[in-house]
């Protein structure tokens, strides 16, 4: 026991860091009701700023010069000390100012415009900020992982800390003390100052703050700056406690901090601080002491520490939560309406043949020979992405359950299937074959999906008592645990460290429908058609669920759980059904990913990628099947991403930055997602086609003809002249025409008044007219 306590104290440094981050999360939540998933990224940026000031004396502003030629000369890098390190205290000051600047920017550019958005919209905004800061850091600081400098009590070591026989670095001790001081200061500020009172009042009701003579916006700004400052402080002071600086790793330190913040109900700074220190200590005890005990299960040894936040979060929230929301709960802002799917047969009749043409080309390769190479791979990635998005549409769009674990559930299906098909016989492609029962692929795939459903339902249990953004936090903690406990756990996967799980190529009635094409690339058109058909079936399935009594119940639960219960809808069962169905959809996506990639590793299902896929689902349109398809088109490595990369080689390092900006802009400007923008246009155009006569065609020709001609010419000389090859030239003309029309419509939209909902019927008619 003495040992355990000694080890626990080793964790107070990490705990102090978690605690400070948690305090910042609480402050941001109090100030503006946002659970700030980008908090870790703010700390990361401050940490990098400090360490680069100390390395080469440069400040790198949180922006990029997007023009590779630097024609505009946007200042990004400011050199302070002609290559030498800057004084320690000045560097600390500048780094903290930097984090405050980022906090102010987040308020003005992101969360103030989003203040009336649905909770999910704010989550997407925060994810956008996180992607932006990550992308910026990768561009501005490079992918190096420097060792951070210890600031507090460096070179100090307590050899026998508190007499428990364990040495403790002075840095860890100091970090915990600073965390407690910061916590006390924040607590005092919110408890005893007028500013704190006004913030508390504004958290309940904005008018309350106005009555106290405070502007709610100024309050929110101050709180954002304070929150960012604590993140910056944590990032600068953490020093060597978290190891080498790494853009992505640092950002993900948010997860235990979220756990600590939730322990404090997102409202109590002291409890969050205590929770943070506690989580850090507990993690260290488990990692260093408990896992060495003989009674500790062997399969838990990898990843048990990362599962601690999940266990704590679930316990705290589940015990505190109510199975139905109580009367008088402040109603959250609603998600966009979920449109009733119509003409499903028509969509299938158009899109399945279209998909077949994209895969195989036109007969005799007339004009178009089918997507191949990276385009073929992007096409199947898009289709599989859409499958995953469908699971978000069902769960978040229809039932309102914000889940960030769907990608990991896809991974569960893929990993389980891979293990079931394995038979332990090494081959040249797979020298370290894992043991397994060697089941045929269709059965293994079904087993994988069944396991995914089981995992999904278990992870859905917290949703019976936890709602909204808090559920999002639970699911992200669950995704972390799945990654470390399953995908990275060689005891369960039987994989050699660093090697991938092999997936056999599927065959159907003797036809190879695997993803390997004729040239040995992963671009087989047969596999693409396989994906098209699977996606079409899944779309029909989800549409039918939406149209039937299940969909009515889902939307009833989404709209109002109390009323749904009073209508005889079994709310818990309906939620679990949704989790199960969504996991089946995600599992299908996972299985298809495995077939596409032919080998899988935990890198395919990194939990942070799960956040991003949720964001893409939201961008496409979280409440409709067509939104899922558009989300798939937008998804990472999908058609749009590959096309963009192809057209802008040399700019590709900016894509995460642009992705983050795009996410924030869409969340602000177009909360119902892009599909809501296209759908009425498509509908209007379809109706118009049915009734249009020659004269109207001529009219359209007169109005749009010039734009099309200009667009075609633009495309012919190349939209991006230094990047046009024979392959892309015909495409360029079509794209040019499309872009010309798009820009024209955009101008009309903006002139018609930007405040109006873009997808509304009259706006569409105006555009189409």
């Amino acid at each position: 026991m003495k040992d355990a306590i000694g080890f626990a104290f080793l964790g107070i440094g990490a705990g102090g860091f978690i605690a400070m981050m948690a305090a910042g999360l609480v402050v941001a939540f109090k100030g503006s009701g946002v659970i700030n998933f980008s908090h870790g990224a703010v700390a990361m940026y401050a940490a990098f700023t400090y360490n680069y000031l100390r390395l080469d004396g440069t400040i790198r502003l949180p922006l990029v010069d997007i023009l590779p030629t630097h024609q505009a000369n946007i200042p990004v890098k400011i050199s302070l000390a002609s290559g030498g390190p800057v004084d320690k205290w000045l560097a600390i000051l500048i780094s903290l100012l930097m984090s405050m600047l980022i906090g102010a920017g987040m308020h003005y550019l992101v969360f103030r415009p989003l203040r009336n958005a649905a909770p999910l919209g704010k989550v997407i905004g925060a994810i956008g900020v996180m992607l932006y800061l990550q992308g910026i850091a990768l561009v501005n600081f490079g992918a190096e992982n420097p060792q951070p400098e210890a600031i507090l009590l460096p070179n100090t070591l307590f050899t026998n800390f508190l007499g428990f026989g364990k040495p403790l670095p002075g840095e860890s001790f100091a970090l915990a003390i600073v965390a407690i001081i910061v916590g006390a200061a924040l607590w005092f500020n919110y408890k005893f100052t007028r500013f704190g009172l006004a913030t508390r009042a504004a958290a309940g009701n904005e008018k309350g703050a106005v009555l106290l003579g405070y502007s709610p916006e100024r309050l929110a700004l101050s709180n954002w700056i304070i929150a960012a400052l604590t993140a910056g402080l944590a990032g600068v002071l953490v020093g060597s406690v978290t190891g080498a600086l790494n853009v992505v790793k640092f950002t993900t330190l948010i997860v235990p901090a979220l756990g600590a913040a939730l322990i404090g109900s997102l409202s109590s700074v002291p409890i969050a601080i205590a929770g943070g220190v506690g989580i850090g200590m507990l993690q260290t005890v488990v990692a260093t002491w408990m896992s060495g005990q003989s009674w500790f299960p062997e399969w838990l040894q990898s990843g048990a520490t990362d599962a601690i936040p999940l266990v704590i979060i679930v316990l705290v929230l589940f015990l505190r939560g109510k199975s139905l929301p109580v009367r008088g709960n402040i109603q959250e802002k609603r998600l966009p309406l979920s449109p009733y799917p119509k003409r499903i047969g028509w969509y299938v009749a158009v899109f399945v043949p279209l998909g077949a043409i994209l895969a195989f080309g036109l007969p005799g390769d007339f004009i178009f020979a089918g997507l191949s190479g990276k385009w073929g791979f992007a096409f199947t990635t898009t289709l599989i992405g859409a499958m995953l998005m469908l699971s978000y549409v069902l769960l978040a769009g229809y039932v309102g359950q914000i889940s960030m674990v769907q990608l990991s559930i896809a991974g569960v299906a893929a990993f389980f299937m891979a293990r079931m098909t394995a038979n332990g016989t090494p081959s040249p492609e797979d020298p370290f074959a894992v043991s397994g029962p060697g089941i045929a692929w269709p059965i293994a795939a079904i087993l994988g999906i069944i396991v995914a459903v089981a995992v999904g339902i278990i992870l859905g249990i917290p949703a019976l008592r936890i709602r909204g953004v808090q559920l999002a936090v639970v699911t992200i903690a669950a995704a972390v645990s799945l990654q470390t406990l399953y995908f990275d756990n060689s005891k369960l996967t039987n994989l050699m460290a660093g090697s991938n799980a092999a997936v056999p190529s599927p065959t159907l009635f003797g036809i190879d429908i695997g993803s390997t094409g004729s040239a040995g690339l992963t671009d087989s058109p047969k596999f693409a058609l396989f994906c098209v058909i699977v996606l079409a079936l899944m779309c029909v399935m989800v549409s039918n669920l939406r149209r039937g009594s299940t969909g009515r119940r889902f939307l009833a639960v989404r709209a109002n759980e109390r009323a749904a219960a009073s209508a005889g809808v079994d709310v818990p069962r309906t939620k679990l059904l949704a989790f199960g169905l969504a996991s089946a959809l995600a599992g299908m996506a996972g299985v298809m990913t495995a077939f596409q990639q032919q080998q899988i590793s935990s890198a395919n299902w990194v939990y942070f990628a799960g956040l991003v896929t949720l964001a893409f689902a939201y961008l496409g349109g979280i409440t409709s099947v067509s939104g899922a398809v558009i989300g798939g088109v937008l998804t990472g490595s999908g058609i749009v991403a590959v096309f963009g990369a192809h057209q802008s080689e040399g700019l590709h390092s900016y894509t995460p930055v642009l992705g983050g900006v795009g996410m924030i802009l869409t969340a602000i400007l177009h909360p119902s997602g892009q599909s809501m923008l296209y759908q009425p246009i498509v509908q209007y155009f379809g109706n118009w086609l049915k009734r249009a006569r020659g004269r109207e065609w001529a009219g359209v020709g007169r109005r749009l003809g010039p734009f099309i001609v200009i667009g075609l010419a633009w495309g012919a000389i190349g939209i991006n002249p230094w990047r046009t090859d024979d392959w892309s030239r015909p495409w360029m003309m079509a794209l040019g025409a499309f872009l010309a029309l798009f820009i024209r419509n955009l101008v009309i939209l903006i002139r018609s008044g930007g405040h109006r909902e873009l997808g509304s019927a009259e706006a569409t008619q105006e555009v189409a007219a």
Partner: protein
Amino acid sequence: MSSLLQTHDLTVSYGGLHANSNVNIKAEKGKLTGLIGPNGAGKTTFIDAITGFTNVSSGRAEFNGADLAGVSPAARAKAGLVRTFQSLELFEDLTVWDNLIVMAEETKWWSFLADIFQPNRALGVEERAEWALNLLGLGEFRDRLTLDLSHGQRKLVSVARSLAASPKLLLLDEPAAGLDTVESQQLGSHLREILNHDITIFLIDHDMGLVLSVCDYIYVLDFGKIIAEGTPEEVRNNPEVIKAYLGESAGELQASEGDAAARALKGEG
């Protein structure tokens, strides 16, 4: 005459506060029973307790002869104990028709499988929903989203929605709040009409005009306790009630309004 709903010393406490203490109420089958009381008297708490939305501290409630303890809100609704909400709580993402159908339909565990293959199959409850819709004169709003309706229309939707569920006992939580006098009187006549369809009603409201005119029997709640009960006539003349709830002059005014409305209704019937 048998009572459909009966509570025995029902008590609901939040911490030290007794929102309902030792409430004994009976709702007779086929009758319209009313519960009135000033704001904060514990009326909605009583409905919440009966329908399972809040925990009962002590005492018990019986519905149709069965003890309600431990039965989930959804199961109570399925058993025919259906409520409306003071704050409406409609399904705003659904059309008026779908609002009714959600309430009316019976689902099985395999319903989702059936939906995948045949989403628009007949449910056997359409006739009932149609009847509820037309009874409250909402036919023309059938395919509109409830968001697009006026407050009064939404009130009617919430009543129609409960009717679609084939309730045995309909608990109405302040259906007249926010309605004007005419709408309120129309609602009153709808309620008497509903009684003719083998549905018992339990009405909570503080529109005295409505309650005194339509109810067969009235309970008066104040500070969580029943302070009076009886026919509208008895309640109207009960000095305790006048003092606690109606206030001297305002109460008399409202009571006389109720009188007039009652005469109008009874005259027709």
